[in-house]
Every structure is written in structure tokens, then in C-alpha cells.
């Protein structure tokens, strides 16, 4: 066993370059993927064409109309699946207490190597290291390995200074050739850490993430259960005095992490270990090859899948809290989320065929609840488009049918919204204090008005019609029809309008419109627009670029309380 003693004064260690599969294999694999995509597209087109032919050529007119009506209603109700998936999570999250594994755990403080990838992180890295050193954890059992990815700013100097102050506890690794992406940088550090027997657990994190003092020990305790392979923490948005966007993100993280991941704990399967704080048992990491996946843009998710496919459990501890700085403008958010969404699309393609063929191997990953959670997110733009097209077509055939389907769909929206917002705000009251407005306006003002209208339709006559009459106008049938067409299309219309916030964010003239539009159309549709953009990028095989999110070092532990 090697004692902690890698002196920071020694020359910087440069492990051997990671082994890549031969170029021919990589090329063949990429070609297979492209062929698979083309096949998928062609099969889908063929199915649609055949269905259309049957409807248009072979059926009598009554049956034709009936078939179209059934297809449209099916498309509308299919659009409700993301709502049902969300409701399922909100319904079970409260019962996390009954499943909480805390009673089974035992005090366990493994020797933990913390790998921090850093590329031009001079503004944040010093504070991150100081915070890690100040954690309440046995001091001789933590080693911080900063992998400096050929930084050109003051990162090397800052890390070297900390390494000199804390020899053996802080290690500076430098890659002379960098820019290959986070996974490659991490693997450099992971390989170094696993090259001797010191580390019993490996923490992978981001350079800007600040750990609360008890976060590491709240994560390591889960590893006392040998069935657990990895643990992730609750990442909170930590920009003090942030703007409308950081408050939206803060609320999004309550729903997407604190709430959704608790629900996934209940289902016994986790979709993603947060890249900013993932702890692996050494044995588990070695079992999946001793490296982080570098084949997609969502290395965290692939690592999570592989850990679970290797038969280990992955846990989320919502009481282990870390703080991160998130983008404060839509352009930054778009870049970050496009990377994540594209990674998810790549993973869906990678695993799609295997899910069908190897259900047993996939265990809980292949069960309906997880499939519902995963695919309703990845397919959200398609489902929304389908529901809108279905509603508008129904409206053209039979306005009464369209109204019924529309009401059912939007009443479910309202149910999920009211219940989900209540639960999410209850999960993290600290963040709720600063983000409650964004929580209420998360679906957007227009969608909120549609929800109110569908839950209580007379409100339209009691307010809008009465007000117009008072102003000397009358609402014609044509006006009502136009309003119906708008509300039926809104589920899809909101996506391209949300995309405009990204376009306007890049201009100087229309920048002021961004917050107004975001509050009107909602933050959810913006994420949906990102997913739609990820489809196009993937379909046209655009280059996978690892766009780094720029950090300024503004993050503060307990930022919520400063608002």
C-alpha cells in the first residue's frame, strides 16, 4: 500500500497516453451508427407512407375519417405521456423516507482521491481546493488530484502553490496537449489515481463546484453497502444575486435532481450521476474499465449506465449538497444544454437496439418506469409536435372532438403542474425562497392561462369577452376559431418561440426581449427547443464539440440565503 506522499515538489507526473481503439475500428463503429440511423429514418418513413396509403386509398370515406380521428386522438394522448411520467415521480418522491437507506448504512470513511479536471480555471480552482481541504473528513484520507488540461491562464500557478502548501494532499497533474474534452482530462487523473493502491474511492467533480463541509462523508457512507457502486450529490445553483435565468435553473435543479433523482432512488435505477459530484467505489470503477466513457458528450450518463449494467446500484443523496455556478445568459445555457441533450440522443441511439434484445442484462434500466422517464424526455419535441398536429387536424374534422381531447390533455398538464410545483418547492424550501416566482412561471404565462381556461372554461366569457364588450367590441365565431387554433397549436408553437430567446440573446438590439419572452413561453419549452436542436445536430452528424461553460467564480455556498 502506498502512503499519501506524492510530493507536489516532484516533477509533474504525466501518465502514459490513454489507449484508444485503432482508427479503423472507430471509423467502422461510426459508419455502423450512421447506417443504423438511416435505416431507422427509412423504416419510419415507410411506415408513415403505408399508413397514409391505407387510409387514403383503401378505406371508404367514413372509415377513412374514423381512422384519421383515432390516429389524431392517439397522438394527442401520446403527448400526455411526459405528464404521466412526471406525475409518477411526484407521486412517489414523498415516500423516499420509507425507502431511505440510511438505516442500513455504517460509518465508512474510505481513502478518497478527488479528481478535478481544470482547463483555464484560474478564477475558481483555488477556492475549490481550499473548500475541499476544509471538508469535515479525516484529513489523511483525502487526496486532491487536479488535472490541468494544458491551461494557459494562472491555473498551474494556483494549483502548484496549493500543492506546495499541502504536500501529498494536493497533486498537480499537467497535460501538455489538452482540449480533447472533460472525459479525456478526467481519465488522465483516474488512471493516475488507480495506478497505486491508495485510493479506495474516487470522486469526480467539476473545477467550480463547492462542497458543503459534510457532503463527502454523506456520500461515502453509502459505499459501506457493497452493493452500491457509485453515489451522486444534489448540485444546487450557487450564484449570489443571480438573475432570472439562474433562478429558473435553481428551480429546475430542484425538479430535475432533488425531486426526480429521489424518485429514481425509489425505482432503484438512476439516469445520471451528476458530473459535478460523482463518487465511485474503486472496485466498481475498475469493473467498468477504470475509465470514464469518452465516446459521447454525456460521459456522466454512460458511466451511470455502465455501473448499473455491471450489477451495482447507483444512489442519489439529496442531503449531500454541493454548489455550482450555472450560466447566467441564454447563449451559455444553450451551449451547455445542447451538449447534454446531444449526449442523451447519442446514448439513446447507442442503447436502443440493446434495450430490445437484452432486457435481462439491462435489469431495471429496461423496465417500463425508467423507459418512460428516459424516452419522454428525449422524445419530448416529437410528442409535443404530434399532440399539436393531432389537435389541429381533429379541429378541422370535428371541433367537438378536438375540444374534448384538448381539455383532457391540458387538465392533466394542470394537475401535474400544481402537484409538481407544490412537491418541488417542499423538497428544497431554501431554494424555493428565491425561486418561487420562476417555479410558478416555469411553464410560461401563456401555458398557465391555457391551464386556467381548460380547468374552468367559463372564465373566458367572464373576463375576456366581458372586457371586450365593455370596450365596444364583440367576439365573433371567427375570433373564437382563431383562438382555438392558437391554443391547440401552442404545445408546439412554444418551442420555436422559445428558440427565439437564444437568437435574441446573441443580438444587442433585442436582448431586452429575452426575459420577457422566457416568462411568457416558459423555461420548459426552451429546454425542449434545445433537445430539438440536438436531433438536428445528431441527424446531420455535426461535429461533437466539447464546449466549456465559462465560469467566473461567483458561486457561494448557501447562495440562496443571500437573496
Amino acid at each position: 500500500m502506498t502512503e499519501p506522499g506524492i510530493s507536489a515538489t516532484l516533477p509533474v507526473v504525466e501518465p502514459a497516453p490513454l489507449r484508444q481503439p485503432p482508427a479503423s475500428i472507430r471509423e467502422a463503429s461510426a459508419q455502423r451508427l450512421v447506417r443504423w440511423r438511416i435505416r431507422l429514418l427509412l423504416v419510419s418513413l415507410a411506415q408513415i407512407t403505408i399508413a397514409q396509403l391505407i387510409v387514403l386509398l383503401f378505406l371508404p370515406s367514413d372509415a377513412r375519417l374514423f381512422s384519421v380521428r383515432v390516429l389524431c386522438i392517439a397522438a394527442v394522448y401520446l403527448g400526455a405521456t411526459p405528464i404521466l411520467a412526471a406525475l409518477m415521480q411526484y407521486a412517489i418522491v414523498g415516500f423516499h423516507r420509507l425507502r431511505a437507506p440510511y438505516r442500513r448504512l455504517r460509518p465508512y470513511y474510505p481513502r478518497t482521491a478527488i479528481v478535478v479536471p481544470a482547463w483555464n480555471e484560474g478564477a475558481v480552482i483555488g477556492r475549490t481546493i481550499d473548500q475541499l481541504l476544509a471538508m469535515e473528513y479525516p484529513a489523511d484520507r483525502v487526496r486532491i488530484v487536479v488535472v490541468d488540461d494544458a491551461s494557459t491562464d494562472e491555473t498551474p500557478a494556483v494549483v502548484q502553490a496549493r500543492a506546495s502548501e499541502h504536500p501529498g494532499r494536493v497533486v498537480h497533474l499537467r497535460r501538455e496537449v489538452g482540449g480533447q474534452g472533460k472525459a479525456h482530462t478526467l481519465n488522465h487523473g483516474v488512471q493516475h489515481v488507480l495506478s497505486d493502491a491508495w485510493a479506495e474511492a474516487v470522486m469526480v467533480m467539476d473545477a467550480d463546484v463547492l462542497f458543503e463541509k459534510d457532503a463527502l462523508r454523506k456520500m461515502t457512507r453509502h459505499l459501506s453497502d457493497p452493493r452500491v457502486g457509485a453515489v451522486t450529490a444534489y448540485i444546487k445553483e450557487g450564484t449570489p444575486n443571480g438573475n432570472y435565468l439562474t433562478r429558473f435553473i435553481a428551480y429546475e435543479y430542484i425538479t430535475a435532481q432533488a425531486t426526480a433523482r429521489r424518485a429514481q432512488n425509489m425505482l432503484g435505477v438512476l439516469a445520471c450521476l451528476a458530473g459535478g459530484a460523482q463518487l465511485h467505489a474503486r472496485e466498481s470503477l475498475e469493473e467498468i474499465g477504470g475509465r470514464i466513457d469518452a465516446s459521447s458528450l454525456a460521459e456522466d450518463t454512460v458511466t451511470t449506465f455502465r455501473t448499473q449494467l455491471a450489477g451495482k446500484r447507483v444512489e442519489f443523496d439529496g442531503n449531500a449538497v454541493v454548489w455550482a455556478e450555472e450560466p447566467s445568459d441564454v447563449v451559455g445555457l444553450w451551449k451547455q444544454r445542447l451538449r447534454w441533450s446531444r449526449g442523451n440522443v447519442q446514448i439513446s441511439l447507442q442503447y436502443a437496439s440493446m434495450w430490445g434484445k437484452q432486457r435481462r442484462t439491462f435489469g431495471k434500466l429496461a423496465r417500463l418506469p425508467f423507459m418512460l422517464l428516459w424516452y419522454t424526455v428525449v422524445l419530448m419535441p416529437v410528442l409535443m409536435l404530434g399532440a399539436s398536429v393531432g389537435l389541429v387536424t381533429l379541429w378541422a374534422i370535428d371541433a367537438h372532438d378536438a375540444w374534448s381531447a384538448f381539455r383532457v390533455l391540458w387538465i392533466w398538464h394542470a394537475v401535474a403542474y400544481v402537484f409538481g410545483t407544490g412537491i418541488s418547492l417542499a423538497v428544497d424550501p431554501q431554494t424555493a425562497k428565491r425561486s418561487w416566482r420562476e417555479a410558478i412561471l416555469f411553464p410560461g404565462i401563456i401555458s398557465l392561462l391555457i391551464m386556467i381556461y381548460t380547468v374552468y372554461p367559463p372564465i373566458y366569457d367572464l373576463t375576456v369577452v366581458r372586457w371586450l364588450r365593455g370596450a365596444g367590441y364583440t367576439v365573433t365565431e371567427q375570433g373564437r376559431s382563431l383562438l382555438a387554433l392558437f391554443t391547440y397549436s401552442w404545445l408546439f408553437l412554444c418551442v420555436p418561440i422559445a428558440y427565439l430567446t437564444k437568437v435574441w440573446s446573441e443580438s444587442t438590439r433585442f436582448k431586452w426581449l429575452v426575459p420577457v419572452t422566457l416568462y411568457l413561453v416558459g423555461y420548459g419549452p426552451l429546454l425542449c427547443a434545445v433537445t430539438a436542436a440536438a436531433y438536428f445536430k445528431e441527424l446531420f452528424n455535426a461535429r461533437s464539440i466539447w464546449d466549456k461553460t465559462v465560469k467566473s467564480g461567483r458561486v457561494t455556498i448557501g447562495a440562496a440565503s443571500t437573496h
Partner: protein
Amino acid sequence: MEERIARDARELDPVWRQRFDADVASDLAAEGRLLGKAVALAVIFFLLVLVRATLL
């Protein structure tokens, strides 16, 4: 694993055991509060649906 846990019990200051116990107690309490809130919300929500169905 058993060896490592036994090692921790042997080598580490008892304060780490106390911190572990305190963490578990506070986290269980937090999860319990969440359960209470979820049940309360479900009841409020049910009442809202009842009001909409009967009074409006």
C-alpha cells in the same frame, strides 16, 4: 468492506462515529418532513379537485 469498516472503527477518532450518527438522524428527520409535506399536499390537492368538481 467489513475489514475496512472495522478498520475505521479501530483507527478513527470516535468523533467521526458521532458525526455519522448525527448526519443519519438529521437526514432521516428531513426525509420525514418531506413525507409529511407530500401527504399534506396530496390532501390539499384532493380538496381542490373536490371544490372544482362540486362548487364551480
